[in-house]
C-alpha cells in the first residue's frame, strides 16, 4: 500500500472533522476562531488550520471565520453524511443513542460512503429533513428529484396501510404553528400510532387518544412501519 496515500487519507479525514466542527459552530451562531480552538479535538489544530486556509476552504478575517464556496460544499457533504448516518443507524439498526455518534463519525467521510450511496440512503429514509437530534440535514440532489424507485423505509403517513401500526420518525412541516399544534396533541417523533382510516379524514390512535386529521397534515408526518407480534 502506498504510504503517502494513506497518510493523505488520514489528513483528509482530519480536515473533514474540522469543517464539521466549524459548520456546527456556525449553526449555533458562533463564528470566532477562538471557539473553533475550544471545540476542535484535533491534536495538531494549528497545523490543520494553516492547511484549510492555504487550500482556501476557510477564510479568516479579524479572528472570525467563514467558508469559501468550496469549503461550504465540502462541509455540507460531511454534515449530510454524518446526519443521514445517524438516522440510518437509529431508524434501521436501532442503535442506542450513546453509540450513535461514534459510528456516524466513521461513516461521514467520502471514502466510506460515496455520493450515490448517500443519496440512496437518503431516499430509503424518506429524505428526512433533520437528524435524530433535530438538526438540519443539508438537502442533496436526490431530495430535489424525490425519486420513488427505491421503496422508502420511512414514508409519509399517507402511504401506511389502514390498520397498520407505525412510529413517527419526523414531521416535515414548514409551518411552526402546525408543529406546535401537533405536538400539543402528542403527535411527535417517537410516538407510536395506529391508522384507522384515510377517508373522509385521516383517523389515528395515539395511546388512548383518537385524532382526526386532514390529509395535508398526514402527508407531512413521516412514519416507520412497525412489525406486529
Amino acid at each position, binding site marked *: 500500500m502506498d504510504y503517502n496515500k494513506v497518510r493523505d487519507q488520514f489528513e483528509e479525514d482530519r480536515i473533514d472533522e474540522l469543517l464539521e466542527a466549524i459548520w456546527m459552530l456556525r*449553526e*449555533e*451562531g458562533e463564528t470566532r476562531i477562538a471557539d473553533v480552538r475550544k471545540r476542535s479535538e484535533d491534536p495538531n489544530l494549528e497545523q490543520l488550520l494553516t492547511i484549510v486556509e492555504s487550500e482556501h476552504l476557510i477564510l479568516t478575517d479579524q479572528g472570525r471565520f467563514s467558508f469559501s464556496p468550496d469549503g461550504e460544499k465540502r462541509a455540507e457533504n460531511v454534515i449530510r453524511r454524518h446526519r443521514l448516518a445517524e438516522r440510518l443507524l437509529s431508524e434501521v439498526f436501532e442503535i442506542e443513542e450513546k453509540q450513535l455518534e461514534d459510528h456516524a463519525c466513521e461513516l461521514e467521510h467520502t471514502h466510506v460512503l460515496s455520493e450515490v450511496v448517500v443519496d440512496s440512503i437518503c431516499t430509503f429514509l424518506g429524505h428526512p429533513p*433533520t437528524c435524530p437530534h*433535530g*438538526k*438540519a440535514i443539508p438537502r442533496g440532489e436526490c431530495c430535489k428529484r424525490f425519486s420513488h424507485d427505491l421503496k422508502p423505509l420511512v414514508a409519509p403517513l399517507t402511504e401506511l396501510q389502514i390498520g397498520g401500526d407505525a412510529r413517527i420518525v419526523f414531521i416535515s412541516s414548514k409551518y*411552526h*404553528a*402546525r*408543529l*406546535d*399544534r*401537533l*405536538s*400539543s*396533541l*402528542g*403527535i*411527535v*417523533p*417517537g*410516538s407510536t400510532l395506529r391508522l*384507522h*382510516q384515510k*377517508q*373522509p*379524514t385521516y*383517523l389515528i390512535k395515539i*395511546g*388512548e*387518544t*383518537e*385524532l*382526526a*386529521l*386532514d390529509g*395535508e*397534515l398526514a402527508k407531512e408526518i413521516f412514519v416507520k412501519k412497525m412489525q406486529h407480534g
Partner: protein
Amino acid sequence: MHGHAAKDTKAGNKIAIVGNPNVGKSVIFGLLTGRYATVSNYPGTTVTLTTGSCKVDGEDLLVTDTPGVNTLIPMSEDEVVTRDILLNDEVKLVVQVADTKNLGRGLQISIQLAEMGLPFVLVLNMWDEAGNRGLDINAQKLAGTIGTMVIPAVGVERKGIKELRESLSVKRYSSLKITYGRIIEEGIKNLEELLPESQISGRSIALMLLAGDASLKPWLSKRITPSDINKIDNILLDVQNRFHEPLGYVINQARIKKAEKIVEGVMSRSQGKGTTITSKLGRWAMHPIWGIPVLLAVLFLMYEFVGVFGAQILVELLEDSLFGNYINPYMTLIAERLIPDQFFKDLFVGEYGIITMALTYSIALILPIVGTFFLAFGVLEDSGYLPRLAVMVHKIFKLMGLHGKAVLPMVLGLGCDTMATLTARVMETRKERVIVTLLLALGVPCSAQLGVILGMLGGVSASATLIWALIVILVIFIVGFLSSKILKGESSDFVFDIPPIRVPVLSNIVFKTLSRINWYLKEAVPLFIVGTLILFTLDKIGGLAVIERIANPVVVGFLGLPGKATEAFLIGFLRRDYGAAGLFSLAQQGLLNPNQVVVSLVTITLFVPCVANLLVMIKECGFRTALAIVAFIFPFAFLVGGVLNFGFNLFGIKL
C-alpha cells in the same frame, strides 16, 4: 359570563379548574359549586369563564371553570382565557382535571403548572374508563413522583369529589422539573432578568416566550420598557437561531418525553374489556361508507322528533288547543270587561296584540320547537356524535375555508344563531371565525324560524320545500366559498380529538336543555314584544301604509309579493323568525301563492337572525366587521329573492 362576580370577593381564595379539552372540568366544577356550566361530550364546549362559590371548612372559595387547553401556550382565543387567568389572577390553588386514560397528555399540563410555581392538585377523572381499557394507574406512586396530591375520580358518578373538597384547603407545590438543555436554559436565565414581577414564575414566562407565544406581547409592553422588549426579542432570536426546529416544538417534545417517562413508571396494562357496542358505533359513525347511513339515520330521527313531534304535534296542541281555545278567547273576554278603551284593548288582544300575537307566537309556536331541538342537540352533543359528524363533513367545509370543527357552531345555529355565534370561538383563526359568523347570520335558520318555515312549506308542496332548502344551502356554500377566497388571513389545520361514544346522562341533558330554553326565551320574548309594539304603533298611526308604499318597488316590483309582505320583512329586521311568522299568517290568509311563498321565505331566511345576534356579532368580530356583514346580508337577501322570482317568471315555473 359570570366574570364580574370575581371582582367583589377578596383575593387569595380563588381556585381555577384547568385541564385538557373534554376531560370533565365542567362536571367537577358543577359538583364543587352546585352551579351549572354547560357540560358535553365535545371538546371546546366551555369558551368563557364560569365562576361559582364553594364552601370548605367555613372558608368561601371562588371556583372558576376554564376552557380546555392542551398546553398553556395558547393557540386559540379560548386558550388565551385559560392562560390569562393563571397569569393575572391571584390563584390560591389550581385543580387540574385529567383524563386518566390519557394521563400523558394531562401530565404535560402538570409540568407547566409546576413550572409556573402554582400549587395544584391533580384529579384523575374518568378513572372507570381507564379501568375498562385495562389501564391501571398507581395513584399513590404518581403522587410521589410529581410531589402533589392525586385524586382518582369519576365525575359523573360523583366519585372522588369528597376527597377533592378536602384537598382544597391544602397548598401543595409540585416538585416536577425539566431541564431543557444548555442553550435553552441560558436563554431562560437571560430572559428572567428582564421580566416583570407576576403571579407565576419568571421561568415559566420565559418558556412561553421562547415557545413563541405572541399573545404575551401586549402583557409585556404594559409592564416593561420598549428597550427591554427589544432585548427580549434579541434573546429569543438568538436562541431560536441555534435550533433548526421551532423552539415551541423542541420544548413540547421535552415535556412529552418527561410525561411519558412518568406514565411508564406508574401505569400497568392488562387485557381490557375489548370492543364494546358503543366503540363500534363510534367507528361506524366516521366510516367513509357506513358513516353516511348513520348520518341519515340521525337526521331522520332529528326530523321525526323536532320536525314532527315538536313542530307539528306539540305546536298544534299548544297553539290551537291551549291558546286558540282557551287562553286567547279568555284573555279577550277579560280585556273586554276590564279595558274600556279600544286602543289599549288592541294593545293586548288585537291583531298586533302582546298576548294574541307576541305571547301566542313565542310560547305556542317557538317553545315546543326550540325545546325539542335543544333536547335532541343535547343528546347528540353528549353522545359524542358531533365530532364524528365533523369528520364526515370536513371536506365540504374545507371548500368554504373552514374545517370539520365548524360543525359545532353550524349545527348549534339550527337551534339558536346567537348562541352559535358565541361558540365560533372554537375556530382558531379570525378568518374562520368571520366566515362562520357570516354564514350563521346569512343562511342557517334557527329552530324557531325553521319550525315556521317548514310548517309553511309543508302546506305548499314537497318540491317547494326542496327548492327552498337547495337555494339556501347553495347560497351558504357559494358565499362560504367566495368569502374564503376574498377574506384575508389563514385557515387553521384540522386536527381534532375524537372522544369516545358515551351513553348520555339524562339529568345532564334535561338540565342543559332547560338552561338553553331559558336563555332563548329571555333573549327572544322581549324582542317579540318590542316588535309587536312597533307594528302596533305603526298600524295605529298609519305608518305601516307609508312604509309599504316606500318599499313597494322592491317588495312588489322586484320580489313579486303583495304589499302586505313588507310588514313581515319590517319585523324580520328585529327577528327573522318573527318575520317568517308574519309571512305564515299571510299565507294562511291565502294572500301568497306557492311561488311567492318560496320567494318570500328564501328572502327572509337570508336576513340577519335577530338584533341579539347582531349585538353578539359586534362583540365577537368588532363593529366594522359586523357592519360589513350586515351591509352585505340585507341587500343580498333581497337580491337572491328577486333573482329567484325572475327565474320563476322566466321559465314559467308554477309550484
